[in-house]
């Protein structure tokens, strides 16, 4: 008798926690979006990750963007062209206003570029914008950019989610943008609310009235939240959950092969300073195993320079330049004077399963050609520092190019740039770097294609990095979410801007 009374009391006291179904319901026109990380900040020109980039792209706008086919499209600029003197000229769209009602002018564009290129700037695109030597304003709606050297890819700079035009009188901690949405509320570390800006310059857009971004740092919980109906859409669908999302009749999945895994080298010491040894590594790894184990089959082997399939620069033969061939690897090792292999330290991180799993598979395959790697798997922050200092022999990394133009791979392939954790350390690959520079300064498309194919040939020989696997970048969503496009290839991480064309319910 006493048991049941207490049991009843205890149960009764827990009921308020269990019985109230106080969950938020979906509402047409209002999208609930599961972010993978809380944006460390929303400064318009500083890189703070893809999640921050998604929010920034919606509250700010730049001169150009990528449309849903991945092509350049006008935003605050309605047209852009190269003039006879080789300068880029942007004509601003009329009747565009910032969120405070002030018109977007050429002065705002000039001021924005000056801030990004400033000597004390911490902007992501700072070095690119520092190559602009003069900003001219021939009339209030035209901006003319004169660069130190010809810059064929300059328009793409304005599509990066870390380049936005800001009202020139903004306070430092309150940048005012001209995007389709306005930031109206935020619960620090938890959620951000944006509402449609009623004076946005594109008629009929944005289609949504509001978006609530809710942060789910744990990838499994993010997927669970989508399946439970707590949110209507999520980014970074974990590979292991993709099948479940596809199988759910209420949901759909949109994936693109954008980011990729690669091998980096320390070229300042030991056998990896020899391109033949690096190439031996490139031929030694069976990529299918990485796709299967690290990405649950949601990836694609990458056996060449990471050029996106379907782009003009893609070449089916060159894409197999580092095909799995153990015999070739052993020949190259012998030619380099290390037929019996050697020992090396392999750096990756245990913080991200895909990095660790990929590193373990690479370790196994390198052992087959005699390279015995000791795995060093610190947490991400230490991994970054060790990478920048070159404290490794060989490293496994994951990254995405800036865009689908081969110039977007400069951050990975150009080893003449200062040290970075995402680039090989001190590797000599001068022909690759030189061809990248030539491609950047060539405006003729046919010639550019030829240059970048030569660049791929050079890279296959010099091996500034080794491509391993493309990984699927997925957005999961309720089937009532319409109009969203996961942008192709490397642009996938810039797809946040597509939310202006998205409707719900």
């Amino acid at each position: 008798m006493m048991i049941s009374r207490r049991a009843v009391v205890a149960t009764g006291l827990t009921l308020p926690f269990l019985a109230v179904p106080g969950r938020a319901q979906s509402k047409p026109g209002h999208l609930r979006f599961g972010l993978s990380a809380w944006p460390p900040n929303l400064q318009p020109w500083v890189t703070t990750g893809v999640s921050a980039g998604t929010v920034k792209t919606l509250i700010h706008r730049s001169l150009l963007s990528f449309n849903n086919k991945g092509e350049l499209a006008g935003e605050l600029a309605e047209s852009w062209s190269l003039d006879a003197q080789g300068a880029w000229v942007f004509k601003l769209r009329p009747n565009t206003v910032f969120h405070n009602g002030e018109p977007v002018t050429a002065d705002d564009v000039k001021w924005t570029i000056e801030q990004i290129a400033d000597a004390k700037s911490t902007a992501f695109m700072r070095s690119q914008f520092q190559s602009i030597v003069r900003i001219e304003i021939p009339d209030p709606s035209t901006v003319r950019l004169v660069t130190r050297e010809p810059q064929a890819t300059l328009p793409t700079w304005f599509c990066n989610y870390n380049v936005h035009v800001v009202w020139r009188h903004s306070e430092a901690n309150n940048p005012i943008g001209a995007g389709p949405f306005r930031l109206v509320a935020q619960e620090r570390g938890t959620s951000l609310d944006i509402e449609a800006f009623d004076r946005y310059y594109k008629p009929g857009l944005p289609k949504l009235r509001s978006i609530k971004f809710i942060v789910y740092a744990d990838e499994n919980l993010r997927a669970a939240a989508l399946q439970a109906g707590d949110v209507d859409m999520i980014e970074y669908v974990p590979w292991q959950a993709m099948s479940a999302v596809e199988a759910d009749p209420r949901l759909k999945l949109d994936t693109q092969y954008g980011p990729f895994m690669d091998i980096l080298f320390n070229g300042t010491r030991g056998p990896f300073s020899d391109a033949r040894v690096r190439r031996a590594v490139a031929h030694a790894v069976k990529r299918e195993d990485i796709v299967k184990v690290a990405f649950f089959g949601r990836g694609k082997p990458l056996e060449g320079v990471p050029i996106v399939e379907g782009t003009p620069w893609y070449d089916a033969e060159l894409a197999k330049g580092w095909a799995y061939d153990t015999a070739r690897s052993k020949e190259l090792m012998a030619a380099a004077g290390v037929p019996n292999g050697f020992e090396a330290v392999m750096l990756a991180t245990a913080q991200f399963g895909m990095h660790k799993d990929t590193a373990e598979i690479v370790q196994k395959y390198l052992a087959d050609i005699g390279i015995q790697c000791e795995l060093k798997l610190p947490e991400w922050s230490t991994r970054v520092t060790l990478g920048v200092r070159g404290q490794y022999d060989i490293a496994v990394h994951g990254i995405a190019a800036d865009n689908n133009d081969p110039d977007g791979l400069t951050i990975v392939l150009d080893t003449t740039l200062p040290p970075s954790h995402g680039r090989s350390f001190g590797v000599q690959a001068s022909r690759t770097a030189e061809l990248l520079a030539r491609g950047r300064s060539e405006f003729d498309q046919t010639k550019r294609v030829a240059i970048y194919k030569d660049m791929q040939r050079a890279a296959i020989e010099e091996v500034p990095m080794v491509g391993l696997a493309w990984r699927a970048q997925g957005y999961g969503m309720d089937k009532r979410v319409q109009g969203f496009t996961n942008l192709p290839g490397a642009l996938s991480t810039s797809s946040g801007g597509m939310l202006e064309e998205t409707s719900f319910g």
Partner: protein
Amino acid sequence: MRWFLHRLATSIVLAWAVATIVFLTLHVVPGDPAEILMSTGGVSPDPAAVAELRQRLGLERPLAEQYWDFLRKLARGDLGTSLVDDYPVVSEIALRLPRTLELIAAATVLAVIIGLPAGTYAALNRGGLFDRIASAMAALLLALPVFVVGTLLVLLLAQTLRLMPAGGFVPFTQNPSQHLTLLALPAIAIAKGLVAVVFRMSRASVLDTLSRDFVRTARAKGLSPSRVLIRHVVRNSLTPVLTVLGLHMGTLLGGTVLVEYVFNWPGLSTPLLRAVEARDYPMVVGIVLIISILFLLINLIMDLLYAALDPRVRAT
């Protein structure tokens, strides 16, 4: 009073020692806050921009100068601002700490409501069916890792049955029922271990008290069984239960990381974890310092509670 002042002084010295150790350790391990912040998402930042940010954050200054600056600010009660977004550390703690305390309090209440009566009943019916089943359950609850329980709860109640949200947070003032619904699963996940601990301690303690002379005397005096149980047995059995609860509550202040992460509950553990990853020195030191102070405070409160429960403690 002297005892209290002595305890207070010791606590302050301990808190300073903790802050100093954390400050120095963080600066010794590899990791550059500027480089890490600008590498978010795996991108390769421009080294010149990284250098500029490092300069702006004052990270180029000698360590001794940074430490002295930290101590001067600490003496004024200023814990500094986050290196990531310049947000005041004190404000972050003020925002997050109540949520963690709420989670711990909810879990503790659940643990006491279930564990104490169950433990007492099991002791009174030692060797009975309930005792055997409850003891086995307690062992099982202790053995199950918290993230397994958390994930199973999400899988069952959120993903499969769709009865509960998978996780998250809504302020109580904004939507009380949703707030409590979101609190339920993480509170249960934390409480599962505490229930087992409280059950075991209560059972052992009641068994011990039942064999004491004063209980026999109380019964011999003709007091009713319920009065003997509540006034003499349970009350005198509470001290060890409180000790264990106090220790666990202190540990939970910094130990709710997994639960907060699994259920997306934005308490103090999440920014601590994120700050360690980002090498956000002021944030880590500030949070650890506050957790240490609270831990010391809980110990102090527990000592005072012993005194309230047991006159012999007051006498000493």
